[in-house]
């Protein structure tokens, strides 16, 4: 690549490795001044890593990064003069819009009068000049993203870095912002690097597209070049909406090849990009250029242009064609018209689906799998004042009993995941309802600093009896996040009480989920949930979760288990053993890892490492505890006793919000002696919640639900395992099949794209 003084950014032999993993292979790249360059690729392709290295958020393992000709490898992020916009707007909620935009100027000590002018100009640029006095929470998502953009450009950066800035917006806004972004970039003439996995975004906005995969640039060029002349099959498939047709060469006239399609028998004409003689039935892969594709009849030559890709498997010729033209792909994010031969099988699929699915029956590209979530047809309900993750409406619940839930439209559903692994004893259990009713007639709330209450005392003593080892001190809370934070706070106060104030680091695993309040989030290893809040919390050290099933090595399961456990040892040494307070893990993984079970050797090794360094072991049993895995605690399967355990979810099985921290008296007593546990929640241990908890425990024990979990869980697991559509459901740990009963997780529904066999039902 030629050296050029006209490049805003240059990468020379830049590579990034995380341990053995190569996130970006040695790469050369130029971003010309005033150009709009898009890094496009699937997750894990290295695009964000590259952007973060340019931004200064990551150091390259080797190579040189230059911004406007100046080497910036050793220049800290705040001296690089780059404008950054992320998917999460990261606006300061307590500052006005103008103050948010002015933040970078203040930091750069720009005089106040000049700053005010520049803020006004920036807000005018993003067409929000009238909203300077508002606060972020008074703005829509699209407006907030414009503010983030104004904040990035107000500092007059050398380069604008945009990391999937549109992916948090809904489809309409996304399209609108796409146009806006491009307009602003053009007006300012700033070199811009845009990271996305959205092909249509890339095609619509870019001057150049850099297609990446597995840390390697597959191809770069103008949108027309990469779209029309994909150099690899990956690029061809990844750009636009590809479909595969199978056929064989049936003839050739000059530069045109006649291809007979296997399924329909129709012939189409194709023009190979690489000229030359094609043998009849010769094995080639084909890619169709998108422009002006039409189905030819036998007398009219097609206007389609076909490109030879490369030799492929000998049995078939595969022809790829694009459903949409480049222009329309650039114009819109979803094709709205049916394809030429919108398959009739589709109609059958939608016919047997309920009304909720009809929204996605009209188009036939892969896009609708992505975007067409079921919407209730013709929803006549008034707008909701409630909001959760998004605007999607859900069926209105009428009632629930046992494992069934019924909506007001009369549809019934099997609660196949107990809500979120909560309703362990089923819905509307008469015994629990009666116990709650009886308690309600006596007292529903008593503040724990004023009264003791029977249900709480009874439940605490019963829980202590079910716990292994010396875990016999119980602290009630109202949910899993609270339980986890209670463990952390108790651990910290234990360190203070025992004269080890320097211990404060809590090591956790990645991926993991320990709760969504800010304290618990600091332990959570789940980037989509933590990223927006990174600046606001002290993220704790993480070690890899023991995802042994993904490893490709010659080690036995037990060897892998020890290897992962020893990563804790290494992290403790890296952090300094005297500063590490605790290690927290889910004995059986939850949402973030899909019921991950480590090899047997992992658990005792972790316990031993913690003991050796005087580090407290916290088991997050919020999802796996209370009988879900066939034992009261999942860790009982391995006979390992933690110093503290967090319980919730199945503990009150959805009847009331209730959770608990159960801790060893060795940990609790010093804290109480040193002045008390400085912590608590208003509803902790209230009599109504504890009465429900007692009744749930009665049901679990009296009906041997843990035993039933083990039996029916094994049966469910066996049934699911027979699926050829589901990969490797056993690898989560064949040895522990029945320890995640009723809670089978196939780790991944990974269907082979070429699989054709039906899914057999259990005998």
């Amino acid at each position, binding site marked *: 690549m030629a050296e050029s003084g006209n490049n805003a950014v240059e990468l020379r032999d830049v590579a990034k490795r995380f341990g053995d993993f190569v996130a970006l292979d040695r790469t050369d790249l130029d971003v010309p001044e005033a150009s709009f360059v898009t890094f496009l690729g*699937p*997750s*894990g392709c290295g695009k964000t890593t590259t952007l973060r290295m340019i931004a200064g958020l990551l150091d390259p393992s080797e190579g040189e990064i230059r911004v406007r000709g100046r080497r910036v490898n050793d220049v800290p992020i705040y001296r690089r003069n780059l404008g950054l916009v992320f998917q999460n707007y990261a606006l300061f909620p307590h500052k006005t819009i103008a103050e948010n935009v002015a933040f970078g100027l203040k930091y750069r000590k720009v005089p106040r009068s000049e700053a005010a002018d520049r803020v006004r100009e920036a807000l005018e640029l993003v067409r929000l000049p009238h909203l300077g006095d508002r606060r972020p929470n008074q703005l829509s998502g699209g407006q907030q993203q414009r503010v983030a953009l104004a904040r990035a450009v107000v500092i007059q950066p050398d380069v604008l870095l945009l990391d999937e800035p549109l992916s948090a917006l809904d489809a309409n806004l996304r399209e609108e912002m796409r146009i806006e972004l491009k307009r602003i970039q053009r007006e300012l003439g700033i070199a811009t690097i845009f990271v996305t*996995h959205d092909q249509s975004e890339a095609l619509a906005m870019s001057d150049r597209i850099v297609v990446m995969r597995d840390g390697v640039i597959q191809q770069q060029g103008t949108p027309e070049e990469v779209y029309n002349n994909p150099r690899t099959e990956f690029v061809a498939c990844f750009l636009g909406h*590809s*479909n*595969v047709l199978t056929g064989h060469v049936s003839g050739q006239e000059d530069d045109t090849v006649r291809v007979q399609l296997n*399924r329909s028998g129709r012939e189409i004409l194709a023009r190979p990009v690489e000229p030359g003689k094609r043998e009849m039935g010769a094995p080639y892969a084909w890619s169709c250029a998108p422009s002006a594709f039409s189905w030819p009849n036998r007398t009219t030559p097609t206007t389609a242009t076909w490109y030879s890709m490369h030799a492929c498997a000998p049995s078939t010729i595969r022809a790829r064609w694009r459903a949409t033209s480049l222009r329309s792909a650039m114009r819109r994010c979803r094709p709205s018209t049916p394809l030429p031969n919108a*398959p009739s*099988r*589709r109609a059958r*699929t939608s016919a047997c*689906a*309920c009304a*909720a*699915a009809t929204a996605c029956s009209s188009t*036939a590209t*892969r896009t609708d*799998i*992505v975007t067409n*979530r*079921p919407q209730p047809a013709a929803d006549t309900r008034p707008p909701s004042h409630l909001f959760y993750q998004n605007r999607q409406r859900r069926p209105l619940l009428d009632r629930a009993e*046992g*494992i069934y839930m019924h909506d007001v439209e009369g*549809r*019934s*559903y*099997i*609660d*196949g*995941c107990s809500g979120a692994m909560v309703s*362990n*004893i089923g819905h509307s259990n008469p015994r629990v309802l009666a116990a709650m009713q009886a308690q309600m007639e006596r007292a529903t709330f008593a503040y724990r600093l004023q009264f003791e209450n029977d249900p709480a005392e009874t439940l605490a003593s019963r829980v202590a009896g079910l716990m292994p080892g010396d875990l016999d001190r119980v602290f009630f809370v109202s949910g899993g996040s609270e339980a986890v934070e209670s463990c952390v706070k108790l651990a910290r106060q234990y360190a203070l009480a025992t004269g080890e104030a320097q211990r404060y680091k809590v090591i956790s695993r990645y*991926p993991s989920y320990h709760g969504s309040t800010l304290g618990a989030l600091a332990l959570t290893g789940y980037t989509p949930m933590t990223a927006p809040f990174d600046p606001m919390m002290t993220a704790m050290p993480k070690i890899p979760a023991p*995802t042994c099933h993904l490893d490709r090595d010659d080690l036995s399961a037990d060897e892998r288990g020890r290897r992962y456990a020893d990563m804790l040892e290494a992290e403790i040494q890296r952090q300094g053993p005297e500063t590490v307070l605790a290690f927290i893990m889910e004995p059986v993984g939850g949402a*973030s890892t*899909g019921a991950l079970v480590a090899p047997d050797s992992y658990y005792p090794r972790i316990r031993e490492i913690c003991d050796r360094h005087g580090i407290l072991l916290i088991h997050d049993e919020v999802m796996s505890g209370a*009988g879900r895995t066939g034992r009261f605690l999942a860790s009982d399967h391995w006979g390992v006793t933690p110093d503290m355990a967090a319980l919730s979810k199945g503990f009150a099985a959805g009847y009331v919000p209730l959770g608990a921290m159960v801790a060893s008296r060795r940990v609790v007593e010093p804290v109480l002696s040193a002045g008390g546990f400085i912590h608590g929640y208003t509803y902790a241990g209230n009599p109504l919640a504890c009465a429900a908890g007692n009744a749930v425990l009665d049901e*679990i024990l009296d009906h041997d639900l*843990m035993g*039933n979990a083990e039996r*029916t869980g094994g*049966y*469910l697991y066996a049934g*699911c395992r027979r699926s050829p*559509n*589901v*990969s490797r459901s056993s690898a989560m740990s064949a040895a522990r099949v029945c320890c995640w009963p*009723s*809670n*089978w*997780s196939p780790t*991944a*529904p*990974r*269907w082979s794209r070429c699989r*054709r066999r039906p*899914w*057999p*039902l259990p005998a």
Partner: protein
Amino acid sequence: MEPLPPAAMAAARLTDLAFERGLIIYWRRTRGGASGDHVMVCPPLIVTREQVDTIIERLADALQALTTELEMHSQ
């Protein structure tokens, strides 16, 4: 067997297809879907064998529908 591309959001789609068939399951994405997504099937512990059969049946149906969709989109 290769995992499906993350952009296909197959686990989310499967969850929707199952929901349409009267079965609620739970999906999540790990590590950006690089090594596949997962769904969890974990009914209340009171579940009976007969009910498990129904769960498997509905899940099978949803999987089949998803397979059909995916095939169609790659055809």
